[in-house]
């Protein structure tokens, strides 16, 4: 099985620019992506549609982490999943070059909130992404009660096409 993640280059550039904006107390910014889905045999394609940044006031002041979302941020993302019946991916950036990876805190927090999306959009997988200035890395849950899987194939759709596999 291969999990493919495809995103338009211009949208990815917009996301990178947005996540790089400074926040008045959080050290990082976060946002959510929505995606359509398609499959063939046991291959799955995540086809990104759009991006919504977490609103300024929806961050919690927690100096122990780079960014802590408040309940409103999660609620809005959950509503998005339910209203449009889409897959939702949490996104943040570690900046720098090369393939990024999730921190222990990232993995712990994802495991808390990503499975909640299945209550409102159970027909879609959901997950989390971490960006660098050159790559993406992501985890996906196909079922709220099963462990996440790593997204293996990425394509940045644009001119030129740019693709890579998770190391």
């Amino acid at each position, binding site marked *: 099985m291969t999990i493919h993640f495809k995103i*338009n280059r211009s949208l990815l550039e917009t996301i990178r620019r947005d996540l790089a904006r400074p926040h008045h107390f959080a050290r990082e910014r976060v946002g959510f992506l929505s995606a359509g889905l398609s499959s063939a*045999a*046991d291959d799955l394609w995540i*086809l*990104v549609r759009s991006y919504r940044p977490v609103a300024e006031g929806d961050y919690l002041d927690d100096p122990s982490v780079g960014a802590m979302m408040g309940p409103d941020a999660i609620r809005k993302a959950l509503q998005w999943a339910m209203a449009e019946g889409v897959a939702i991916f949490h996104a943040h950036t570690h900046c720098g070059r090369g393939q990024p990876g999730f921190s222990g805190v990232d993995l712990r927090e994802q495991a808390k909130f990503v499975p909640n999306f299945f209550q409102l959009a159970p027909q879609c997988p959901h997950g989390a992404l971490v960006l660098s200035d050159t790559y993406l890395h992501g985890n996906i849950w*196909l079922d709220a009660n099963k462990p996440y899987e790593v997204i293996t194939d990425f*394509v940045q759709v644009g*001119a030129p096409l740019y693709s890579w596999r998770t190391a």
Partner: protein
Amino acid sequence: MEDRMSRFDRQSFLGPDSESKLHGATIGLVGLGGGGSHIVQQSGHLGIGGYVVIDPDHITDTNTNRLIGGTLADIVPATAKVAIAERQIRGLVEIPRIITVRDTWHTAIDDLKRCDIIIGAVDSFIQREQLERFARRHLIPYIDIGMDVHDLGKGQYLIGGQVILSMPGKPCLRCCGLVTDERLTQEAGKYGAAGSRPQVVWSNGVLASTAVGLVTQLLTPWFKGIPGFVYLDYDGNRGTLTPNDRMGLFQNKVCSHHPPDETGDPLFDVRVFDRLRADMALAKLKASSKPAPVSERQTLWLSISKIFGRKR
């Protein structure tokens, strides 16, 4: 000097890893007539490794004025166009990955999903529109080529055509004015009575070569700032290929005909997918786990018997 060069040395300016990138790429090619057959041949020379080639037809004598790779010897056995394409590719590509579909592309959507780029060399506008919509839904760049010969009267003709790169998010065939409701209605009215349209080898060659150039730009660009939207007009009487006015005007236009919220399969359900995936994994496991041969079982039984001091 030439003897010491590898097969792809003359295109090494495409990048140090261009050979592997091109071999690793898969293109979907819908329509293997005058235009598509040129694209097959050139893609093979270029070193592209993966192909989904689709055409329901076989070669006839009226195709031999332009179908690259087809020979007079193919007429009597009515060789399928996909078989001619496969023969071309196997003659040029080492360890190719080829899926041939002797049917309409609608029967090959799972194979097309796996393509990096889809190229349409089809006759009808409805096919163009449907194929482009499919490509957009799956965030796959689509390249369209087409030519026509227009009767100007008094024994005068004009050869025209176009090459369009339709990139997800960028202007589409409707934005270009190539696909219009009027054309679709006109085409639907002529259904079954279209007859054969004039086609010539050299014009198809110009358009196909340009399409292969666009494929190469997308996979292994050799200069910076390649355009994300391309609309080139072919004038076969002047022998020119020029950017359509819309190419400059629409470079930053966002397509309104294929909004981003249309990506994916609207009926997709991960619960169904996960069940199917589990069934497939189980079937794979069953297929790969066979009982040990009798001789191995006997040896094993003897070993066990020895351990427990029993004789068979």
